[in-house]
């Protein structure tokens, strides 16, 4: 029991460390808003697509087998002999599901760890601020923000499948559970987004904001397929692509030997000689993900591990807030 208590308090300290004051100050002015209407069970700031329990009528639609008969508009049925379902809009609570990638590629990082940043198993092992650390910091910040808005927050840690789950809940205890669950390290194998998406969408059927925190260095087709499935389930996805500064700049001074973290391949090469081609390929990849997200109406944010979490998330949330206000006004 005492050891469990120690781990809990240790996790709390790490969690607080993740929420550095500058991060919180940069995120505080914004609220976490879903661009798409999500189904909420609690009254909150989010518009709910939940018809029937709504306070504000939205529209009629045709009945399909399976619809709740309580939502039938009997008046319309009486006048037109057609089964019509009434739909309402109301402010709902938001379910935020954090999908944190813990595959082997997240173990990469080049930023030396500084005191007070908090640490994970990954950073302890690697001795540097890994992409997983950055993903954890981002996830913790978002969960904190969501919980502050009384939203329910859940966590799924995945790699080639779901590795760990924290069920959606609200309240301060939930945040500590999330932090504790994130106090792990990336696994040795790679990502399988298709499988993970299948498992996630099988578990969560109601609408939620899925925050995918990953380096997204997998096959673009796989990413496209996964996001298409989320879109098919009318889920909102926020893609946070965490990349290390070294991956983005590919800046080396001499010949190096590269060992793939998820690919069983070694290559001796002068990085300077392939830097241009590398950056082109990486750029194409990132742009492809961006295009896919745009296609499905999702947000996509590339996060640099050498940059603070706050400003990037702040810009993203501000943009989402503006978009939502305009949408409402329209």
């Amino acid at each position, binding site marked *: 029991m005492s050891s469990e208590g120690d781990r809990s308090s240790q996790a709390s300290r790490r969690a607080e460390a993740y929420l550095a004051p500058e991060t919180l100050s940069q995120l505080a002015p914004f609220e976490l808003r879903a661009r798409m209407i999500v189904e909420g069970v609690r009254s909150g700031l989010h518009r709910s697509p939940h018809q029937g329990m709504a306070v504000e009528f939205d529209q009629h639609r045709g009945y399909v087998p399976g619809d709740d008969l309580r939502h039938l508009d009997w008046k319309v049925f009486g006048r037109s002999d057609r089964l019509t379902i009434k739909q309402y809009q109301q402010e709902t609570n938001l379910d935020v599901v954090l999908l944190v990638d813990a595959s082997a590629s997240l173990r990469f990082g080049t930023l030396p760890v500084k005191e007070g940043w908090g640490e994970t198993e990954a950073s302890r092992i690697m001795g540097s601020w890994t992409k997983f650390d950055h993903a954890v910091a981002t996830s913790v910040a978002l969960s904190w923000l969501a919980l502050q808005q009384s939203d329910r927050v859940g966590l799924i840690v995945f790699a080639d499948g779901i590795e760990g789950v924290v069920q959606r809940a609200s309240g301060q205890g939930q945040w500590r559970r999330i932090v504790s669950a994130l106090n792990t390290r990336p696994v040795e194998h790679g990502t399988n987004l298709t499988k993970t998406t299948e498992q996630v969408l099988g578990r969560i059927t109601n609408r939620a904001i899925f925050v995918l925190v990953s380096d997204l260095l997998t096959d673009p087709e796989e990413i496209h397929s996964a996001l298409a499935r989320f879109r098919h389930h009318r889920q909102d996805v926020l893609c946070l692509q965490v990349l290390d500064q070294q991956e983005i*700049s590919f800046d080396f001074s001499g010949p190096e*030997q590269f060992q793939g973290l998820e690919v069983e391949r070694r*290559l001796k090469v002068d990085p300077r000689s392939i830097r241009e081609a590398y950056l082109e390929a990486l750029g194409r990849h990132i742009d492809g993900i961006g295009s896919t997200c745009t296609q499905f109406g999702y947000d996509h944010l590339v996060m640099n591990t050498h940059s603070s979490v706050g400003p990037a998330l702040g810009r993203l949330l501000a943009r989402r807030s503006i978009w939502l206000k305009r949408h409402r006004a329209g």
Partner: protein
Amino acid sequence: MIVPALILVAPWMAIVGIACVAVPIIIHLLSRRRRPPIAWAAMRFVLEAWRARRRRLQLQQLLLLAVRCLIPVVLGLALAQPLLSNDGLFGTSGTIVHLVIDNSMASGGLDDTGETPLDRHQAEAYAVIESLNQGDEVGVIPLSQIHQRHSIPAQRDHSAVREGIKRITTTHGPANLSQALDEVARRITSDTSQSHRVVLLSEFREGSGRIDEPLPPDLFQSDRIQLEYTAPATTSIEQVRIIDVTPLRRLALRQGGVESLASQSLVRLERDGEQLPETTTTLTAMSSSGRQTSRQVNWQGGVRDVVVDFLLPVDVEDGGVSPIRIEVGVAAPAQQRHLLVEMQDVLRVVILDRERLGRDQLPLELDSANWLQRALRPTTELPIEIRNIDPAAIVSGDLLDVDAVFLLRPDLLQTEGWRDIEAFHGHGGLVMVMPPGDRAVHGWTDTMIETMNLDWSFSPETQLLDPPEGLVVTDSDDSVLRIIGAELPNLLEPVEVHQILEVDPGLGGSVSLRTDTGRPLLVTESKPGRGTLLLLTTSPRLDWTSLPAKPLMVPLIQESLRGGLHLGRGKQSIVVGRPLLQSEQDWTHGELRHPDGTSILLDDSEAVIDRPGSWLLIGENGVHDGRIVANVDPTGGDLDRQSAEAVEAWLAETGSWSVMNEQVKAAGPGRSLVWILLSILAVLLVLESLLSRWFSPRGTDAMSTIGYAGATS
């Protein structure tokens, strides 16, 4: 060391350069080894980039590595001083180098640097040998071939040739370029399968060969023969040479008031150089007993040669042959002369005339023998012994130990007598023939011509000259009357000739006196060592000529006697370097011995006297048999320089010669590739710099990075 047809002067530098090829490779390998692998997440993009650039990168790396490896190789090769053989890069045959080294007298003088031209030629020869391929052959032909042992046949043992060159010394002989080039041509002809290179090392001063001497034309016309010569000297050297020393009498009587003639000589001096300033030189002479004479010679500015009289230190007391050494300046070989002066106590003369008894006595004016005796012995002090012999009674023994024969009645001489006279003459004796005054027809002339082997022709009858003719002197260096040449016009003036035997002396005889209508009066035919034949074409009696009663008679007979003996005796002098066979000497056995102990066997047909001085002739029985002096050819010591253009034109008679410059000296038998390699090296360095810049990835600052350093998309 040789790469086919490529000669490396410093092969170890090439080895170092080739070894340095490993440096860029090692650097490359070390740079690959020292870094631990980087665990990389975005490996698929690295692989994608690598696949996209692999071929180009491999090509670039190979190209850059090749350039970097070539740089030390080319640098090493350049420092190795490669030479491209004349056979071309792929030639396989070796080269035979013929070094013709000027070791003549002219190459022996020390200059301001303290070294002789021969020293420089030897150093240049060493440099040429140093640059040769081990497979090349090299031989040496000295330009002055007195020392035949210095001629080295072509061989591959370069060190032996170097040793041979080291032993070469300057000779006392002149250079013989024509002979040396003939020898080179002979060697080339003996092996035409290989390339030949002829290197002529000389300063081409006039002593080394005058440009007006003919050379064998078109001697080297093959493309496989490379001809080089060192540039002619450009500095002028001032010196005075003794061209000749001519004693007025080589044979002189010890007493009788004319012995001083033996001390007199004419010395011909010549100056080398271009300034020819007004200066003074000292002429000295020394006898074997140590007596010495000297005189100052004052040179006027611009004067190149001069003839001065000089009193020689003749050892009168010792008798016999007196060797004398004459020097001028620093006594280089061309500044010394040696000569012999022979002294005699008495001259023995035989007059061949019909013996007359009392009733046959002729009147004084018609007694030619009487007139002759008076002229031969005008005073009783004069040590001349005269013996009268009847021509019909002469035997060979009568002419033993006789110096001169005066033949007044050749018509009475039998054939046997003529043979005795010819033998006497052939051994250096003086024979003076006069026509018999009693004869109008002279049939004896045919016998004389035949016996004495003359190409003269006579008019068979005595010519009466009416009016009588006077005499004139003929300018001739061979004249027996040369010493009294100055007084001759006055002495000749009162003399008239009434009768004369006309003769055409042909090519062999020279005329010392003529009548004023051109008829020869005194004809001389002389060969050194072969005696002198004099013909007085008028009989010394007053019905033929007034000569016996005139003052000319005594000096004419006396000078004919002494001058004839002077001409008829052997010159007793030979030229250093010339084979004895060419020296017109009779010696065939025994040996010649130099004061320094050097000995030359006369049996050797190729024997050459190789140094000047007074040589003793030792007979087969080991007895001293005479003496001879050897003098250098003064032209061989001529240090006047010749223009480069003239030398070039001169040598061009034999083939296409080119001046061997410093680079060629070092390059040896081929063209130097140093500058070509240095040019290639420069190109490689520039290329490496450019390729490094082009192939090396640009720095981060210079390249745009993708814009995701924290931004959103």
